[in-house]
C-alpha cells in the first residue's frame, strides 16, 4: 500500500484523543476494536482526507490492535481513501434512480467543468471526482455528496454554483462537517 506520499508527525490533538476515549467507552471491556470505523473517520478528517500507512499504524496503536486489522478494514469500506484526494471529494451517485433522473449528465458536466475524469483530482488539489453507488437520496435525484453534505435535485446550473462556492471557500470538506438540511 505504498502510495509514494506519507504523513509525518502523526498524533491526534487533545480533543480528538478525548473523543477516541469516549468512542472506546461505548463498548464492553476489551472490545475497543469496535471503535475502529469511527476512529478511522476521525483520522481521515484530521489527516488531509486520506489514510496513509503511518496514519493507520497510529490508529492501530491507539486501539491496541495489529496494523493489519486496520488495513483490512480501511481497504474494505468505500469511504476510506487510501490515496490522497482533493480538498473537496465530489461523490456523484449513479445508481438506478439517479441514473433515471440524469446522473450521467451531471457527471459529464462536472468532468468538463473541472477538466478531470471520474477518479481524478484537479491540478490545484481542490477537487476529486468520484462516482459512487446509491447514497439513499433517490427521491431527490440526481444528487452528489461533498463532505457530509448532500446536494440534491441537481441541475447543471446548481452544480456550477456549488463548484464556484466550494472553490471560493477553499476549505477541506469532511464527513464530520456540520450540514444544512434542505429537504428534510
Amino acid at each position, binding site marked *: 500500500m505504498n502510495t509514494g506520499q506519507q504523513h509525518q508527525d502523526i498524533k491526534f490533538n487533545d480533543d480528538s484523543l478525548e473523543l477516541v476515549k469516549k468512542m472506546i467507552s*461505548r463498548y*464492553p471491556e476489551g*472490545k475497543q*476494536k*469496535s*471503535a*475502529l*470505523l*469511527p476512529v*478511522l*473517520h476521525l483520522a481521515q478528517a484530521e489527516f488531509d482526507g486520506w489514510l496513509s500507512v503511518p496514519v493507520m499504524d497510529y490508529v492501530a496503536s491507539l*486501539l491496541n*490492535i495489529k496494523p493489519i*486489522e486496520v488495513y*483490512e*478494514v480501511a481497504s*474494505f*469500506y*468505500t*469511504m*476510506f481513501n487510501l490515496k490522497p484526494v482533493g480538498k473537496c471529494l465530489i461523490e456523484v451517485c*449513479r*445508481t*438506478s*434512480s439517479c*441514473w*433515471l*433522473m440524469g446522473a*450521467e*449528465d451531471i457527471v*459529464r458536466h462536472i468532468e468538463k467543468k473541472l477538466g478531470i475524469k471520474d477518479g481524478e483530482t484537479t491540478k490545484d488539489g481542490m477537487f476529486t471526482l468520484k462516482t*459512487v*453507488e*446509491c*447514497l*439513499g*437520496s*433517490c*427521491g*431527490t*435525484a440526481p444528487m452528489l*455528496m461533498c463532505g*457530509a*453534505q*448532500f446536494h440534491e435535485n441537481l441541475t447543471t446550473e446548481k452544480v456550477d454554483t456549488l463548484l464556484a462556492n466550494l472553490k471560493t471557500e477553499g476549505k477541506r470538506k469532511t*464527513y*464530520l462537517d*456540520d*450540514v444544512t*438540511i434542505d429537504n*428534510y
Partner: protein
Amino acid sequence: MGRKLLLKNDHIPGIQGYDVYRQHGGYASVEKALKSMTPEAVVEEVKKSGLRGRGGAGFPTGMKWSFLAKPAGVPRYLVCNADESEPGTFKDRYLMSRIPHLLIEGMITSSFALGANTSYIYVRGEYFYITRILEKAIAEAYANGWLGKNILGTGYSLDLYVQVGGGAYICGEETALLESLEGKRGNPRIKPPFPAVKGVWDCPTVVNNVETIAAVVPIVNDGGEAYASIGIGKSTGTKLISASGHINKPGVYEIEMGITVEEFIYSEEYCGGIRNGRELKAVVAGGSSVPILPKNLILKTAAGEPRLMSYESLADGGFVTGTMMGSGGFIAMDDTTSIVKNLYTFTRFYHHESCGQCSPCREGTGWMEKVLHKILDGHGTLKDVDLLWDIQKNIEGKTICPLGEAAAWPVAAAIRHFRSEFEEFVKNPTRIKDVKHYYRLNNLPEPVI
C-alpha cells in the same frame, strides 16, 4: 387519507427536538411499557400486531424477538439496522432526520422488551450527518431521564449509542452489520448460529430495521390488535414507501397496507402519476433486489386482480409474474427508459458491493456487469443474453448471504419480462453505435438508449 402511525406528526415544526416531540405524546410507550408491562407482555403485543421486518425480508418481528436466547449472566443486545443502502430506499433517512426521537423511543421500549441494557444504532457512513441528529436526540433523552440508570425509577437501565459505518451495502445484512460493529470487514457470517443465539461479541442479539423499531411505539401505545386491524391479511399496519424515478411527486409516503398499486402511483395523495404526461413502463417495487415488473403486471396480477401494496399481493404469481415488497423502495420508470441500461446500473452496484467472500457472487456480479456493458456497447450476441441468464442462475442460492440472490433476481426478471429489449440491442449494434458516435462528434450528452 390513509391512517398514519409513524409520520402522523412529521410536518410539525420543531418535531426534531425533544420538547415538541414530548408535547405530542412522545415517550408515552416507554412510560407504559416500563411502568405497567412486563418485557414478555411487550413481546406479546408485538406478536399480536403481526409486525413484519421492514428492512426487506419481512420476517415476523415478534417471532424474531422470541428466538432471543437468554442465558443467565450473558448480556443481550438490540442493534438497530440503519444501514439503509438498498437502491431506491430512503425512508429510514427521512424518519431519522425528521423524527429522530421516534427511533430513540422505539429503541428504549424494544430494548426493555428484550432485556437489553446496551443498544446500538448502526448508521451507514454516508448518513454521517444523521449520526449527529441521533446523538443530539439521545443526549436529550438522557437529560430527561429516558436513558441511563434506573429509568423512571423502575430499576431498568439502558445505554444507547450510535455507530457509524464506512460505506458498504453488505453491512445491511445483519451478520455483516455485526461484524462491522465489531470493527471488522463486513463479511456475512455463516448461519447458524443465528444472531439471536450468537450475535455481537458472541452474545445474543436482535437486529431490527429503523422502521420496524419505530413501529413498536404505536404498537405498545395502542395495542397489538389495533395495529393488526390496519392492513390486509398478514400485511398488517402501515409501511413507509420510498417513491422515486419518473413520478410527479417523489418522496416518502406512509401507506396503509392493502391500497392498490394503481392508487399509489396515480393518486394525488401519493406519487401523483407519471411525470411529463408519459406512460408508465415498469416498476421496481421493493428496492433494487426485487424483480422488475412491466406496467400490466404491476397494476394487475396475472389473474387480472388489482395488485395491492402488501407482502402477499406483490408476491402473487411468484417470480414468474410477481415481485416482492422488499424494503419498499418503489422506483417507477416511464416509456423512455432502457430496461437494459437500468439493469446495468443495478448489476454494477452489486459488483461494487459484493464483499468477495463467495466466488459465485464475487465473480458472477462482475461477469454480468461486463456482459451487460458489452451488449449496451453494441457488441453483444444473442448468446450473451442466454449467458446472463445462466450466470444469474448459478449465483442464486449458492452464497452465504442473500446478496447473491439480490444480484441475480433483477437480471432474471429483466430478461424474463423484457427479453425483446436485449435482443433489440444485439440485433441493431450499428444503430446504437451510430447514434452514440453522432452525439460524441457533436459534443452532446450521449442519449439514454
